[in-house]
């Protein structure tokens, strides 16, 4: 990935990070947190609080205007374009609006990250079929996104995000367009991934889910981040919840 030595074992380290768009005001200020491997966090905050902006820095779509971000131990400001591209392959993202490609069917949408990574077609066929079965959509394999319901699209988006076993999964309001039963089912899918070692950050407004699963929160308010953990002391910035995930499962 790069010749620079790894400086941290954390998945993500944010140190004094600020973000602003062009010459506008800072949307995020003085953001400090780290995510340990295998941890599970909710991200909360009012609409416009900067949740999507913070997630966009985590999936390398935006660079901080101030401060330092390290992902998988590597400082972002020293990475080349190709190194960043390789790093993105270790990050799965579920968008609130799914961002499925309407001209590709469910199978090809899910297969996209594997094709980008240069996987063999025989492996792709096997993995994608397994993944679609895992999300309960093996029968909709050849359906195009406009033919699918909101919940089905959501599951396709999740399958696409996890198909190449990312080290971190970021989900922006993944339960925003589904009912509570489906929301819980999706969260259980995330928990299964978490058990396999994937670090998760789920941005959500769904208080019932937050309460039900009880994971620590990265709470954004007026551009600042506060970590709220009902089980661990407030000043514990990096909360490993691998075992806790088991307990809540």
């Amino acid at each position: 990935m790069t010749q620079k030595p790894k400086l941290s074992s954390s998945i993500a380290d944010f140190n004094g990070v600020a973000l602003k768009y062009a010459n506008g005001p800072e949307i995020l200020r003085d953001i400090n947190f780290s995510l340990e491997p295998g941890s599970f966090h909710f991200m909360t905050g009012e609409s416009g609080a900067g949740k999507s902006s913070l997630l966009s820095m985590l999936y390398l779509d935006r660079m901080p205007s101030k401060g330092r971000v390290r992902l998988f131990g590597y400082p972002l400001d020293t990475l080349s374009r190709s190194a960043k591209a390789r790093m993105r392959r270790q990050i799965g993202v579920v968008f609130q609006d799914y961002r499925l490609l309407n001209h590709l069917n469910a199978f090809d949408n899910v297969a996209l990250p594997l094709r980008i990574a240069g996987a063999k077609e025989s492996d792709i066929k096997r993995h994608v079929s397994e993944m679609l079965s895992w999300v309960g959509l093996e029968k909709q394999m050849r359906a195009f996104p406009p033919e699918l319901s909101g919940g089905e699209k959501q599951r396709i988006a999740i399958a696409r995000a996890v198909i190449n076993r990312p080290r971190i999964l970021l989900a922006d309001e993944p339960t925003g367009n589904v009912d509570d039963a489906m929301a819980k089912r999706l969260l259980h899918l995330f928990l299964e991934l978490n058990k396999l070692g994937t670090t998760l950050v789920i941005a959500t407004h769904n208080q019932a889910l937050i309460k039900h699963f009880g994971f620590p929160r990265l709470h954004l308010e007026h551009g600042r981040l506060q970590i709220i953990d009902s089980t661990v002391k407030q000043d514990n910035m990096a909360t490993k919840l691998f075992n806790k995930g088991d307990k809540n499962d």
Partner: protein
Amino acid sequence: MQIPTVDEKGHSRAKQLTDEIETTLTLLRSSPGILGATVLSDEQMAQLMEPWMGDEADLTSLPLPKLIDVTIDTQNPPQLEPIITELADQVPSAVLDSHRIWLANLIKMANGMIKLTSFILLLLIFTTAFTVIYSTRTSLAVHRPVINLVHMMGANDFYIAIQYAIRSFKLTGMGGIFGLLVALPVILGISYFFGSIAADFSIPFTRMQWIVLYLTPVFFSCLSFLTTLQTVLSTLKRVL
């Protein structure tokens, strides 16, 4: 070849005519590339004039020139310039009628057309490159959401650029093949047309030139491929 039987004032040139014909025949027969030279007989002249004069006409009363039919070696055609110079010196009244003279002008014009075509080809290359650049930029702008998505999934610039370049290669190749299919009958038609005017004027395509012609779609496809690749790479670096 023709040698006039009367001078400019209409007086008979019978006296020197026999010598001039002899000199001309000797000169022609000794020139390389000429297989034979024969003076047309009165009967042959009558046959030639029949369409205009009818078969009863008395040609002796007309000031018809003496015609010499010259047979040339088509495999090894004669150099006309030295023959014309020599004739002008020894038999000033002799006139050489050769289709080669007007054909030479036609060939000169054709060569001019080749130069013009080369210039047009150069323009086409630049036009193709600029068209590809602008259409690629437009396509990148239109498909920006898709590009952003695959970029976020870890596609590097080269991966995205190669997808565009392959598509561009295929489209240009299909257009090129279609263009070649249209062009081939036109080229063969023109070749046949000019070939029927004169053997010297048939389009002299060598095997290599035919190969070059067939490879034109491949050349433009490669041009399109490389232009697209470079355009996408430079655009992505700027916008992503």
